């Protein structure tokens, strides 16, 4: 049977790969445009609470992030909720200094538009968050954002 076949039909024509770089470049462009550079690597686990009324934070350059959660590495850092600023754990008292530093890094007209975004885990207790809020008031960083993820009404009640 095989011998009847024409030899030329056996060869599968190769797939042209000349356009592959272009396709990859297109993907690359997409990612370069839609994403932003990672600022910090998280050292705490954060499951953001759900909310239905979330609003997007418009200007990224005006946002300062504060992370609060239980350390990922519980063996070293314990399992009490802690505050992470930039790439290190900090006591709550250092927050004021941190905010001041962040304020210095911005131009004059941006300073009063600065927003502090609290990224906190939904299962931690309010104690540390209240402390953080008090500290922010002392630093007069009054515009804050409780970071949340968009969810259904059912998910919101599931926060409890």
């Amino acid at each position, binding site marked *: 049977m095989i011998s009847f076949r024409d030899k030329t039909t056996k060869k599968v024509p190769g797939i042209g790969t000349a356009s592959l*770089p272009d396709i990859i470049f297109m993907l690359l462009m997409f990612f370069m445009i839609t994403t932003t550079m990672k600022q910090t690597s998280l050292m705490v686990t954060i499951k953001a609470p759900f909310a239905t009324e*979330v609003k997007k934070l418009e200007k*990224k350059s005006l*946002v300062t992030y504060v992370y609060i959660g239980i350390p990922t590495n519980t063996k070293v850092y314990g399992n009490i909720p802690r505050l992470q600023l930039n790439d290190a754990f900090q006591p709550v008292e250092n927050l004021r200094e941190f905010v001041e530093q962040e304020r210095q890094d911005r131009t004059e007209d941006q300073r009063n538009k600065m927003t502090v975004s609290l990224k906190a885990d*939904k299962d931690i207790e309010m*104690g540390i968050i209240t402390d953080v809020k008090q500290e922010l008031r002392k630093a007069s960083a009054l515009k804050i954002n409780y970071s949340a993820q968009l969810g259904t009404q059912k998910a*919101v009640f599931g926060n*409890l």
Partner: protein
Amino acid sequence: MRKRRETPEVNAGSMADIAFQLLIFFLIATTMDTDKGLLRKLPPMPDPNQQEETKDVKERNVFLVLVNRNNQLLVENQVLNINELRNKAKEFIDNPYNDPDLPEKELVEVPYFGELAVTKYHVISLQNDRGTSYGTYMAVQNELTAAYNELRNRLAESKFNMKFDDFDEDDPRRAAIEEIYPLRISEAEPRNVGGTK
């Protein structure tokens, strides 16, 4: 002579690999998520030199929401399930029938709307325990925000046939609606509600 003129073709075979490497770099080093959440404004810290002034707020103007460490809600001295909070808050903020137990209304001249009775002095007071879970706190905040948003949307739709969120930040129509339904959520100075820790 003729042979020299021909420039050798650039080998583009590895172009795809180079592009892939760049792609992988961007995939790892960047994030896509834009931050979302509930925006709030904290009250400024009281001046320590100044005498503590107690603001007298009429009882009918205050909507007290307490959340204890077991994540239970006490609203206006009644135990309430969280899924009833939104409607209760809406009724309080709007006071549609001028109920004497709900906040007092005052006539205010609002652009686009003319003279209108507004619950200008209402305050939603939210107090939580240090042991309240953050998730519960956020659920309560979300429901209160939702109450305001629903009222604002209802007004925006009936008057301008638009959603409240569709107005620009400095749109005068937005300001007008905010004047009718001002977001007044007050968070008391921290204290323990219901039991010490």
